[in-house]
Structures are given as structure tokens and as C-alpha cells.
């Protein structure tokens, strides 16, 4: 009868009881042929050691990374760009441009924010802006905008003189210039993103918009902070 008590082992006080019992479980699964590389710590250590030998990587850094596998993973999506993209779509859809601008595609240009450009292209490109189809253009910097065709909306990540440069370049054309800078409206933007209670909101220079023959929609005006 005693011989049948087999796998019983002496009880040890250990703070890592969970880990120890989990190891027993994994070993059992391995024994039953159910173990996967993912679940086998031994296999992971083996692969890690192999990689270390091949590439001369320090083992501690790999061990540090393996700690992450025990935690939930941070979603690295650009949250502000997701929100801004929808705002920009509403700015395009809810304002009115002069009649001569309502032919061909409706162009929205993004300067200096590749992530915002990617989200807009993915979710909003080709969607209808009135009778026009939305075309999203991306530019690395202010200088590269010069060769672009007429655009209805420009979002510029720059501030200060560079933002002013864009505002000067479009002069009095019916282009809605949008910024995200503390001095946005002073430097020629018609709409500027601001932070209010940790939220993205926007302010409007509606007088300047009127001078450019742009009619800011009531829905947009009603949500503006100033």
C-alpha cells in the first residue's frame, strides 16, 4: 500500500507554490504528449539559450522580455489620432465650401502625422463628403505640400512659424487649416485642437473662416470650446 503512494512528495513551504504546481502540470502534459512549445518553459529556455548562443545576446535581457509574456499586452494604437481622424471627417463633412470647390475629389491633407494619415486612409478614404469622394493625402513636411493639387482641408502637426508658413501659402484660398498647437489660431489655423479635461476638443476662428468663404456648420460650432 505504501508503495502505491508513489508521486507523493514532501511538502515544502514555498512562496511560489503556484509556479511549482504549474510546472508539475506542464510536465504531466509533456508526458501525455499534450505539451506545446508555448506552454513549455523548458522549451522556451532551450530556444532562448540557442538564440543567445547564435547571436551572442545577453541572457538577462531575454529573461527580462519573457516577464512580459506573463502580463497583458498594451494596445499600441494611436488613440489621439483615432479621435482626431473622426473629428477631421466631421470637419470635412459638416462645413460648406464655395461652389467651385465642390467638383472632383474632396482632398484632405495631413502634414507631419503618419499615424493620423494611416487611420484616415484606412477608415475614411473614399467615403462621401456630400457628392464628393474623400481623398486623403499625406505629407512629411510643410515644404512637400507645395507640389500638391488644391486641397480642401489641411491638418498640420506643426506650430509657430512653420504653421504660419502653411497659412501664408494658402493665403485667402477656401482651405480649412487645422492645427494642434497652443498658438494654432494665432498662426493662421481656422480650427485648433485643444485639451479640455483630458479630452480632445477644438476651438474655431469663425471670422477668419468667413473671410475665406468657408461656412462652418452649426454642428461643428455647437461643439467648439470657443
Amino acid at each position, binding site marked *: *500500500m*505504501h508503495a*502505491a*503512494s508513489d*508521486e*507523493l512528495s514532501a*511538502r515544502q513551504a514555498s*512562496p511560489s*507554490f*503556484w509556479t511549482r*504546481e*504549474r510546472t*508539475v*502540470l506542464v510536465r*504531466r502534459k509533456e508526458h501525455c504528449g499534450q505539451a506545446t512549445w508555448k*506552454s513549455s518553459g523548458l522549451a522556451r529556455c532551450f530556444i532562448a539559450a540557442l538564440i543567445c548562443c547564435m547571436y551572442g545576446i545577453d541572457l538577462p*535581457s531575454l529573461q527580462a522580455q519573457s516577464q*512580459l509574456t*506573463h*502580463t*497583458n*499586452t*498594451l*494596445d*499600441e*494604437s494611436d*488613440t*489621439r489620432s*483615432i*479621435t482626431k*481622424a*473622426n*473629428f477631421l*471627417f*466631421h470637419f470635412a463633412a*459638416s462645413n460648406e465650401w464655395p461652389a467651385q470647390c465642390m467638383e472632383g475629389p474632396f482632398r484632405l491633407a495631413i502634414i507631419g502625422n503618419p499615424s493620423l494619415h494611416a487611420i484616415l486612409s484606412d*477608415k*475614411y478614404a473614399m*467615403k462621401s463628403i456630400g457628392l464628393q469622394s474623400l481623398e486623403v493625402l499625406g505629407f512629411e513636411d510643410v515644404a512637400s505640400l507645395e507640389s500638391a493639387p488644391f486641397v480642401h482641408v489641411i491638418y498640420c502637426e506643426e506650430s509657430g512659424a512653420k504653421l504660419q508658413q502653411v497659412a501664408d501659402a494658402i493665403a485667402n484660398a477656401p482651405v480649412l487649416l487645422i492645427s494642434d498647437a497652443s498658438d494654432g489660431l494665432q498662426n493662421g489655423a481656422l480650427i485648433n485642437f485643444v*485639451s479640455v*479635461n*483630458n*479630452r*480632445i476638443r477644438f476651438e474655431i476662428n469663425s471670422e477668419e473662416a468667413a473671410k475665406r468663404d468657408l461656412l462652418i456648420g452649426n*454642428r*461643428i460650432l455647437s*461643439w467648439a470650446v470657443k
Partner: protein
Amino acid sequence: MSAMKIDIRSFLLACVVVSASFCSSVWAQGEVDRATELGRSGNWADAKQVLRPVLNTPAYQTNGRAWFVMGFIHKELHKSTGEFGSDAPERLEAIACLQRAMQLGMNPTDRAVAIEAMDFLSRSYFREAIGMVEGFTWGSTEEIKALYGRYEALEMSLNPTKDLAHQRSDLSRYLGQAHAMLLESESPRPSAELKAIFEAAIGHYGDALKGNPNDYAAQYNLAITLYNEGVRKLKRIDHETSMFELMEIQDGCIDLFERALNPMQAAHAQQPNRLETLKGLMTLHYALSQKAESDAYRAQIEQILGNR
């Protein structure tokens, strides 16, 4: 003369009682020995057939060794049949028999083996709970908790002073993580179910932190789960989202991001140079439109990476 007759009657009665008791004891011990022999040759089912029917008869009710042998037989049957679950009958019977044997009393050798057997059964509940957490499916929480409950009850019966708070806390953290992983999986689920899974994840992390407020992983994972839920809400925004809906979604997300900040800061306070928490704080402050704070954490990350 009549007194002498009474003495003879008493003597004969005593003889009958003693011999009946002796025969009963010998016969009873015979069932135990037979069951033990069958067990030694691996015939656990036959051993059970021999001992189980007579175990509740007066001859066995107070026989500690009989209950010990029966408990051991049930334990071996539990192992050989591969049964599982908190209500696995052989395991429950094994525990009941072994506990009764310990109450009735046994020789020191049997007692030591009985304790080892109970320890094994206790761990088997724990291992099953771990296995279910690792292959977690929605709706299995109650069974996991039941398995852990049986483990805890058995452990406490073996050692009433044992502190299981950390293990309970670990289980809650792993349950939180298992729920959070369901949220991140690609398989489509109804929104009500997703909401319930999210709430369950948060609840489990909360339980883990009640048991162990300095649990780094629970703090970090709680923050990530809250943050990721906010991001998931944001990702549902598309061209059909109205301005009003956008504002509502944003309010909901910011609330989650703000809730995530405290546990992320608590995790960071425990391990100030850990990159994942620095990155978490950088990302959270960015999502909260707090550029200066986000940039400060970015600078710390760059400094740490630069020093490597």
C-alpha cells in the same frame, strides 16, 4: 446455589459477547486485509467491491484502518479513471474516508500515509484549477473557484494555521489575466458578453490586489486591461459615428484611461526602471492629452535604453 447459577449465566453471557466481538473483529479485519491484498495487486475496483458494502456495518464504523484503506482505494480509483472536476465522486469519497479515518485514529504509519494521500488529493484540485485557467473558456470561473475552494478546504483541514492569502490572490490575478486574454482574442462575441468579461477581469484583479496590494503584475495588468478597453471603444469609431457619439465615446474612454493611471503608477512605484510601466505611463498620459508628462516618461525610457 442460585447465586452460583447467576454467576455461571453471567460468565457464559460474557463468553458469548467476547467471542462474538472477537469473531466480528477477525472477520472485519479479514475484509480489510482482502481489500488491501487486492489493492497491492492493482485491483482497486475489486478491492472497493470487497470493502465498500461492509464499511457502514457496526463492525467497521469505528475501524480507523478500514476507513483509511477505503480512502486509499478511492484515491487510486480517482487516479486510474482520470476523473476530474470539483465533484469527481471517487476523489470526494477518498477525502471523506481519509478524514473519517483520521478522526477515528490510526497507527502512526497509516496516519502519515493518509496525510500524504490527502496532500496529493489537495494538490490535484489545485492543478486542475491551474489547468482550467491556462485553457480558460468563458463561463468556467465557477468551476475553477470550486476546485480552488476544495483545495483550500483540504489544506486548512491538514494545517489550520496555513496562510493561503497569497495563493488566493495569485488565483484571482490569473483569472483576471485569463479574462483579459479573452477580450484580446479575435473570436467575435456579443457586446453584452464582452462587457461581462471585462467587468469580471477588473473584479478579479481587484480581488488579487485586496489579497496582496503590492502585487506588481496585478497592478500592471489591471491598468492595461482598463486602458485596452478604452482603446477598443475608440476603435469602433468610424465614418458613421456622429459628433455626439464621438463625444460620448471619448468620455467613456477618458474615464477608463483615468482609472488605469492609478494602478499603472502603483506598479511603476514598485519597479521605477521597468520599461513596460514607463511605456504604459507614457502611453496613458498621451491618451489623456497630457503631452508634457508623456514626453517626460519617453525621455526616461530613452535614457534607460541609452544606458544599456
